């Protein structure tokens, strides 16, 4: 594995954040199965090294935009479980007071500009955030997360063109998990994804999205360069989602094999790979990691219990926040 963050604390923070995402998702899935969650949700499990490798290369003041599969980005950018589960359940204490739900979840105070239920819908927002940073003379960087499927949206090319022309500090992070809903990426993406960015003069990289250190090292480098005005950049992160497209997508053998799923889960699990590296490097013992995992899972369970008991917003909130009217 590549080396990026350079001290034990950083390594363990990355590991913890990956475990936190997994724990969050396991609980979210269970809430769905128990019919305790309103609506549907899209699980991030399997892709943890992407969100964590990238977000650990960012400062709180840096911005991200997220997707319909947004819990991972939200956790990685620093969100707390309680407010997240409350949001998932439509409770008043949720980050969005229950108004957003899974597809719009965001800890805005950590620079998360929001998950987005329109595939590709946040590409302009991310690029505009970078434009704002540049206009302000701040050195904030914005990372735009999106899936392989989103590369089919024309908006991406419109904003990459402007980002390239104006050298904006934005990093386009394409999470290529091999599928766009129930369709393989090959069937919906002609040519090469990185070439599409390069055609606009944007430097593009492909990286193993299961290797958190590789992701983190590349991103750390690109973030620094983007702060100096060398952006924009494009990263294609090769990864995999363990669950169905959404929690209700159970029978999926018609579009991908169980073998394929098993292969990724057993041989390319980002948490396991990184855990193995941590122990083999002597940074942590297996017991340390187990204890850490236990703690995280307990924290998640407590947050779920809290959120389940938490109140819904009062009916009077229904027409609040349509407009911001300062008085």
């Amino acid at each position, binding site marked *: 594995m590549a080396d990026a963050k350079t001290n034990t604390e950083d390594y363990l923070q990355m590991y913890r954040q990956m475990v936190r995402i997994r724990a969050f998702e396991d609980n979210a899935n269970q809430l769905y199965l128990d019919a305790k969650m309103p609506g549907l949700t899209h699980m991030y499990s399997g892709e943890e090294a992407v969100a964590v490798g990238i977000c650990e290369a960012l400062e709180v003041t840096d911005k991200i935009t997220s997707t319909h599969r947004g819990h991972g980005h939200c956790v990685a950018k620093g969100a707390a479980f309680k407010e997240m589960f409350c949001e998932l359940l*439509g409770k008043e204490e949720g980050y969005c007071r229950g*108004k957003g739900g899974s*597809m719009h979840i965001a800890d805005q105070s950590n620079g998360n500009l929001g998950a987005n239920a329109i595939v590709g819908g946040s590409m302009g927002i991310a690029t505009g955030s970078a434009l704002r940073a540049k206009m302000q003379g701040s050195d904030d960087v914005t990372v735009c997360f999106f899936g392989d499927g*989103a590369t089919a949206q024309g908006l991406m090319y419109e904003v990459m063109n402007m980002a390239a022309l104006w050298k904006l500090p934005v990093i386009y992070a394409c999470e290529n998990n091999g599928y766009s809903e129930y369709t393989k990426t090959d069937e*919906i*993406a002609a040519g090469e994804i990185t070439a599409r960015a390069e055609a606009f003069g944007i430097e593009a990289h492909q990286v193993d999205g299961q290797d958190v250190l590789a992701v983190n090292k590349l991103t750390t480098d690109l973030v620094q360069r983007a702060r100096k005005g060398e952006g924009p950049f494009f990263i294609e992160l090769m990864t995999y989602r363990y669950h169905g497209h959404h929690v209700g997508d159970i029978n999926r053998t*018609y*579009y991908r094999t169980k073998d394929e799923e098993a292969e990724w889960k057993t041989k390319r699990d980002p948490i396991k790979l990184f855990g193995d590296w941590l122990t083999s490097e002597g940074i942590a013992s297996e017991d340390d990691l187990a204890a850490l995992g236990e703690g995280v899972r307990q924290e998640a369970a407590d947050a779920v219990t809290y959120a389940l008991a938490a109140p819904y917003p009062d*009916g009077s909130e229904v027409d609040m926040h349509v407009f911001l009217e300062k008085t």
Partner: protein
Amino acid sequence: MRSITLSQAVNEAIAEEMRRDETVFLIGEDVAEAGTPFKVTSGLVEEFGTGRVIDTPIAEQGFMGLAVGAAMTGARPIVDLMFGDFLFLVMDQLCNQAAKTHYMSGGKLNVPLVLRTNLGATRRSAAQHSQSLHALVAHIPGLKVAMPSSAYEAKGLMKTAIRDDNPVVIFEDKLMYQDKAEVPEDEYLIPFGEAKVLREGRDVTLIGTSSMRQVCEAAAAMLEADGISAEVIDPRTISPLDEATILGSVKKTTRAIVVDEGHQNFGTTAEIAARISEKAFYHLDAPVIRMGAMDVPIPFSPALEDLTVPTAEKVAENARRLVAGELIHAL
């Protein structure tokens, strides 16, 4: 008669028309093997092949544009737009291109395509997956807009839409896909611009589009218990709108409530209420009441979302006030 689901009805309509006319094809995201997320088009690819049931990348504007071009050159595409909220992505191709081509070409070209999509909240899908945007489309000359209120209507309107020589947008209610209704085995078409009187009544006319038809029917049942006789009308297409049937009813009952799941402001209730108020003016005994969805983005939380949509209780309550001669807005 057999009962089938709205989903099956749409599926049958498409299959029958594809059998009948080889220029008909289906295009959209995951319409083939996956049969759409709502499983409405399941089985079609097996019968018609991937050449006529075409999975696309996530490029709504793009495949909408393709459909316009294919329609201009002799095909009859059915475009599947997974959520009505994605209309915002295809508006240029739909409203600047498809809707205007026949007119701009002085009648030389035409664009026989169907855009099938959906509407409806209370599915806990939040603001970008819950909108009912039919009023926007109905505002554009050159587009027809159908809103099936049951499996029966869904099949008959879909078949008419496919045979229409103009662009037609059909909004299905995404919560109604599993709802069953009696649907004849024999072929039938439902002409556009013909409202259906679902229940005759004397005291008040309830006009409900799409699933608001059921809301109105439920309200009528409640009102019956109170001795109030409500007529229920489903316009079925809002463009063209069957003004004659609606006005005829209101002239008889002298009172009307218009119920629709789109936002109330600048929405469908405005058009229908304005027409009634203008053209049945001398017959009205009370103001026409509009009941649209609240003018707020649809909230995710069930505690809030359910408040945004008209309910049978509220429709009935308004009807009682009208019939009681209460001076609504009298100040």
